């Protein structure tokens, strides 16, 4: 189902939200990003109906739910710390919501979730005896067992060990496709957002700085805060074949093999600009032309267009005066295969 938030404002003293306008499309996987203390979790709790609103309206499929009790909204929430009921077994945790949601598919949904999330061997255990990854899978199963229209995820992966994180990320993707629910995930990890979400918003100090498609936020930040937050420039959508990535007619060596499609990112300081091509077996070197030059005091940012890709390089003042680039000049952009981050 779609969600629409209009002019929402919350004041909790330490946390406040202002002028929040947001639309989630049906079946969306939406990432809500921002630094710690930005108010992301408060927005989730406002959607569930757990914090009082000063103003604003919330709609689900054009049905106003602003004044509805949390239990009547059809919105499930999964917390970072899992919040499993410690006095109930895994199975009782998962089935918890069923008695309040007497729909026919309940038991079937539970069985499906248990096999999808590989929880079959844990059903009789108590949460205190589970690993972090297992607990988070139980929390997901519990939230989805009631077939919610919308699932809110509050940093679902950040408390997990890196290897569990990969695993759960894959599970999230499967669950999103299988459940058909609209997912809203809070995260501060960009690669997480990129690999899961289609659309995203960046929040800062209780205000939404930018809302849009995830690549757009990455490539075209509209405020300096978003640009800083996003950090990594040179993000390209690519097709992989073997250990090369293809984009805009370029064959970029990435050093390792990857799945069929995805993103690559290169830090601006890892790009080398030169007037002559650099010849080396591990390096990528492409001819392009300078399209923009920005001075930042101690360093310069140079945008170089190669076919339809814009590479942004950072060079020192010293290098700048050696190269003396001007807009329109031809330059080679070079970088090592190991400097390419696969997302």
């Amino acid at each position, binding site marked *: 189902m779609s969600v629409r938030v209009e002019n929402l404002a919350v004041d909790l003293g330490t946390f406040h939200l202002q002028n929040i306008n947001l639309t989630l499309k049906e079946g969306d996987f939406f990432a809500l990003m921002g630094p710690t203390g930005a108010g992301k979790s408060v927005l989730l709790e406002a959607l569930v109906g*757990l914090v009082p609103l000063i103003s604003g309206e919330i709609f689900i499929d054009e049905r106003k739910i602003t004044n509805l009790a949390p*239990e009547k909204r059809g919105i*499930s929430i999964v917390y970072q710390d899992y919040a499993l*009921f*410690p*006095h109930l077994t895994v199975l009782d945790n998962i089935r918890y919501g069923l008695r*309040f949601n007497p729909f026919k598919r309940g038991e079937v949904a539970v069985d499906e979730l248990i096999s999808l999330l590989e929880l079959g061997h844990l059903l009789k255990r108590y949460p205190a005896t589970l690993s972090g990854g297992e607990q988070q899978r139980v929390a997901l199963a519990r939230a989805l067992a009631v077939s919610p229209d919308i699932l809110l995820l509050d940093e679902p992966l950040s408390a997990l060990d890196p290897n569990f994180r990969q695993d759960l990320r894959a599970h999230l993707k499967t669950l999103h496709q299988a459940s058909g629910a609209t997912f809203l995930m809070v995260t501060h990890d960009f690669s997480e957002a990129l690999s899961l979400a289609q659309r995203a918003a960046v929040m800062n100090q209780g205000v939404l700085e930018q809302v849009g498609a995830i690549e757009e936020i990455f490539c075209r930040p509209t405020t300096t805060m978003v640009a800083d937050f996003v950090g990594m420039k040179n993000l390209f959508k690519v097709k992989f074949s073997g250990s090369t990535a293809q984009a805009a007619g370029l064959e970029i060596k990435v050093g390792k093999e990857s799945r069929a499609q995805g993103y690559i990112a290169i830090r601006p300081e890892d790009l080398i600009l030169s007037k002559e091509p650099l010849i080396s077996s591990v390096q990528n070197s492409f001819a392009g032309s300078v399209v923009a030059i920005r001075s930042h005091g101690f360093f310069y940012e140079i945008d170089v267009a190669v076919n339809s890709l814009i590479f942004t390089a950072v060079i020192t003042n010293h290098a700048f005066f050696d190269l003396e680039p001007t807009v329109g000049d031809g330059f080679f952009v070079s970088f090592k295969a190991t400097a390419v981050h696969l997302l």
Partner: protein
Amino acid sequence: MRKESFLWFALGSSFIVLLFITVPLLRMVSAPTLSSLWETIRDPEVYRSIWLSLYTGISAALICFVFGTPLAYLLARSEFHGKKIVEAIVDLPIVIPHPVVGIALLGLVGKNFWLGRVMQELGVRIVGSPAGIIMVMTFVGLPFYLQAAKEGFASVSPRLEHVSRSLGASMFATFVGVTFPLAWRSILSGIIMCCARAISEFGAIVIIAYHPMIAPVLMFERFQSFGLRYSQPVAVWLIVVCLLLFLSLRLVGGGAQKVRSGRRAGSRV
């Protein structure tokens, strides 16, 4: 290696404190002979008074449980103007001298006040009756129950309640299904504390109800009329019965929880 002198001081004073508590009790428990204990418990006046102490104390604890639980929950969960005042009011029964409590309650239910007269008209006897004893015990026991229950509720993460609500449970269903079971150990402790406090009350009860005699009043009377040797066995019996009661409550109420989770209920944030 030389130990810190402060450590020796701490150990020494701890020892003194423990002795100060245990020695008088041990002395009293060991004073009566077995035959005098046996004789005492066969005395109808004694076992009637112990039974009266027990059932009025348990009734008071149950009343505190029924009426105090919602207040304890509110105090643990919500912030409101005047919360500090409410908390201070709740603690009043602890700080007020016991005879003052008796006098205050007597002023309410005695013949000199309309409430007392109305109740007398209706045939409800408070003064000099078990009902009066239960009323006093509830008054003095409430703070102990409220404090323990409040702490129990506060230790349950609000996130567990939030999740429960988002899964479709109403506020009441959440309380019954999540909050209460997780706070149960503290609640049980509160019931036991409240009950113990109620059974130990003397000063307020002698004012409202000298008769029927609860065990402490009987001890006092035997001490006054016959001396120490005649009140000690009653005291021993009261201690034994109370310890058995509280022990069995702990076993019955706490055993099931222990199996389920090793650590403290859901307080992770």
